[in-house]
Structures are given as C-alpha cells and as structure tokens.
C-alpha cells in the first residue's frame, strides 16, 4: 500500500531523515514511534506529498508521490485521510461544514446525500449532536473525533494519524484509540499512526516501527517490540533516562 525507499530529508542544517525505508501492507495499522522532533510527522507529510524528499522514493499503491503532477497528486490525496495532531479543523466552519467539506468540494453528491454521509460519520465518532457548533466550542478530544470523521468522510484507503491521543486525558485517549481501531476495521482501511505515547501505540498497532536518528532501527509486531534487545527501543519503551537516547545530552540537562 505504502512504501518508502531510502528517503532522505533535510531542513536547513538539520538532517531529519537519513535513508528511511518502510513498507506498509493493506489493512495494517502501523505505528511509527520516535522522540519528539525525530521526523515522524515529516514521514506523514512526505506520503501526502506536502513535503518533497531530497532523495529516495515514496509510493502509495502504484503512484510515486514525488513524481506526480499537482493535479494527479490532488487526486491521489483524495484516497488518503489525514488527522492532525491539533485537529486542524477550519475554525470559520461548523462541525458539519468541516466534515462535509471534502464531499462538497471533491464529489458530485447532492446536498441530501452529503448530509446523510456527514450524519453517519459524525454518529460513528459520537459527535452528531455537535454538528452546528464551531470548533472553538469543542474540547480537544471532541475536535480530534470530528477531525477523525472528516478524515474518514471520503472512505479513504489509507489514514494517516499524527499523535491522535496527544494532549488528551487517559479516558478520552482510549476512546479515540478504540475509535481508530473500530473505524479502520469497519472500513478496511490501512493506517499509519505516529506517536510517542506508549499505551496508545500498543493499543492501536498491528505492527510497529521505531524511528531514531533519521532511520528505522526496528520493525515488528507489538509483542516482538516489547521483547526487543535493541537498547534504544528498550530505553524508549521503559522511559528510562539511562541508555543511548540521552547519551551526551543527559549531563547537559541535569547540569541545568
């Protein structure tokens, strides 16, 4: 479904991705873990074609994303749903208008059909009663659920989720995670989630990958991940301050 081949990406002086290779199978729920600023969200933006890789190839189905024309890329994006860390709902539109936006702009459906689909998706995420509210009137968890409904409204084959449970209380985080599982299972969609929240990652994932220093250093099923011998993965999962992740920088932090 998705394949990244030796992808390199640099932002000004900082080399973020240094040869990332990754393959995602259909109907898989891949979770990419890594430290903040390690380039997890960059991978999602590269798959969407919002960023262009310095080198390497990114494939979505048979399409090589960084070689597509603008028009073709817009068509391909209609098969991918994206849920942003801070929801990114259009603040001037109501919940209903936000969810209906892709349908109104990209399909020929009639207003009554659109209304039906919007209500259906909002019901799936339990937000039907908020359809006339503005995003500002919703809590963080509610916004995430609306963003999820918007991401799913075109029945995408691939869903990209950027930190879906970050900043939510544990109960709502679980609700959002379970919603992701049930919705992807119901629509038979593939999903790629990036997160550094361990509980959320293990709940969602059918396969996991760890991004460290610009490379995927470990890939596998959640069970294998928990038993990983890789010191970086082990330290990341345990949250310990001792290990290779903070090597060198720990002294600087503790001295401060």
């Amino acid at each position: 479904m998705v394949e990244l081949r030796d992808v390199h990406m640099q932002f000004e002086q900082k080399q973020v991705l240094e040869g990332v290779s990754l393959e995602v199978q259909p109907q898989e729920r891949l979770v990419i873990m890594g430290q903040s600023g390690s380039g997890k969200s960059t991978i999602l933006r590269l798959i969407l074609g919002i960023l262009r890789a310095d080198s390497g190839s990114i494939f979505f189905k048979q399409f090589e994303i960084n070689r597509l024309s603008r028009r073709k890329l817009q068509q391909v994006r209609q098969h991918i749903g994206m849920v942003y860390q801070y929801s990114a709902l259009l603040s001037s539109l109501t919940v209903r208008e936000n969810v209906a936006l892709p349908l109104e702009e990209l399909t020929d459906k009639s207003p009554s059909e659109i209304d039906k689909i919007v209500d259906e998706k909002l019901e799936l995420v339990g937000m039907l009663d908020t359809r006339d509210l503005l995003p500002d009137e919703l809590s963080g968890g509610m916004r995430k659920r609306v963003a999820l409904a918007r991401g799913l409204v075109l029945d995408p084959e691939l869903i990209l989720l950027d930190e879906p449970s970050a900043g939510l209380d544990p109960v709502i985080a679980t609700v959002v995670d379970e919603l992701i599982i049930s919705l992807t299972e119901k629509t038979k969609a593939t999903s790629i989630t990036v997160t550094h929240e361990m509980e959320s990652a293990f709940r969602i994932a059918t396969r996991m990958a760890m991004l460290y220093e610009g490379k995927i250093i470990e890939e596998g099923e959640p069970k294998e991940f928990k038993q990983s011998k890789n010191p970086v993965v082990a330290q990341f999962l345990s949250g310990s301050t001792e290990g290779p992740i903070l090597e060198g920088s720990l002294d600087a932090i503790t001295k401060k």
Partner: protein
Amino acid sequence: MPNAEARRTKPGPLEFVEIERSFLREVGSVFWFIVNTFQETMERVQQGRAPFRAASFFRESVRAGVDSVPLVGLVCFFLGLTMALLTGYQLQRFGTERLIPGLVAITFTRELGPLITGIMVAARIGAAFTAELGTMQVNEEVEAVEAMGIGPLRFLAAPRMLALFLLTPCLSTVSNLAAVFASSLVCKVYFSIAFPYFLDLVKDSLLIRDIITGILKSFMFGLLIASIACYRGLTVKGGAAGVGTNTTSSVVTAITTVIGFDTVYNVIYTNFYPT
C-alpha cells in the same frame, strides 16, 4: 576606529545586490502566486465545477466592499471638502473659482479616488486577509485543506482576490462621488456656485477617458493588494509572531506597490495620451 565603524555600518555593494535580489525574488513570487491561483482556478472550471464557494466569494465581497463604503466615503468626502476649499480660495484671487468642480472631479476620478481607495483597502482588507490566512497557516488549516486534495489557492485565495478585484473599482467610484459631493457643498456655501451649474461644470470638464483610466487602475490595485495579502498570509512562518510580521509587511508592501504601480501607470499613460 571611526573609519572602521563606518565601514561596518555602511552597506557594501554586495548587500545592495542581496537587497535587489530579494526584491526581485518577492516580485517573482507574487507574480507566480497570481499565475498559479489563476491556473488552479481554471483547471477547476475546465472540470465543469464551481471554482470556489459562492458563499465564500459573497462573504469576502461584503467584508471588502460593502463594509468599506463608510470609511472610504467619509475619508474622500473630507478630502474633497478640503481640496475644494483650499484650491477655491487660491483660484478666487484670479476670479477662476468656477474651475473648482472640474479640478476636483478630474483629480479624484483619475488619480486620488483610486489611490486613496487602494491605500485604505490595503490597510483595512489586505491586513485582514493576511492575518486570517496566516492564522490558518499557523494552525495547519491550510495544510489540512491541501491534504484533502483541495487546491488551497483556488479555495482560499481566489475568492478573496476576485472579491477585491471587482470591488475596488466600486469603492473607487464611491470615493469619487463622495469627493465631488463634498466639493459641491463647498462651492455652494463659499463660492456661490449652485448645484445645477456645478454639475454642468463637472460634465464639461470630465472626459470618459478620465473615468476609464481611474476604473482600470482600480481593478489592478484590487488584484495587487489581494495577491500580496494572500501571498503573505499563506507564507507565514513562525507562529503568532510570524502572523504579526507578515501582516505589517503585507500592508507596507501593498501600499508601496499601489503607489509605485500608480506612478508607472501615469508615466506610461501620459506618454501615450499626453493631454
């Protein structure tokens, strides 16, 4: 030491080259922004679909046009009043106060009306466009629109650009009428020129060409202001501070561009039509 200090602070030729380059880069970026927006919008039209939401266009039109009428009208009313009064007293010394109506009408129709309107639209609407789109950019709303497969230029910039393109000439006309009306009051009260005679004098002196010149200019002002404002908004970087910086820069650039374009337009126009 003072020499060394002077050497450090005085911009060298390389710095001038860099300033020149960055200026040309900006001009090129705005030009391509207009081209890309037009292209994206036309692609959509070719698909047989509405390029953007009518509601969005009308909302921007009301905001940019209708809501600006009181400000533009009032400012030009006062300017027309002042101009008629001050020039009237000078002309009265030579017994030529009957030139006031024509003077105010021609000056506003050809030059001051579009220019003052352009400057006020840049300050009032250009700033609003940049701040709004900039905030959307910072909140990843623009990226979300792009990620859905919706062209952000045609969806966000095109309705704003079209609204300002079409409504700046209307505002310019309002400003001309306000100024001429104000000068008619001055002529009546201070120089005993009755309204019917005032209108005859305006009609005698004003040419259709003057009106067309002003209107054409206003179309271009509207397009330039909207393009600069949308471009600056969609290229905001650096959070809230970035929105502030780009909004200021948008207003300054738009006003400078309006005045600069007006000068170039006048130079070219007077070369081809000297009278």
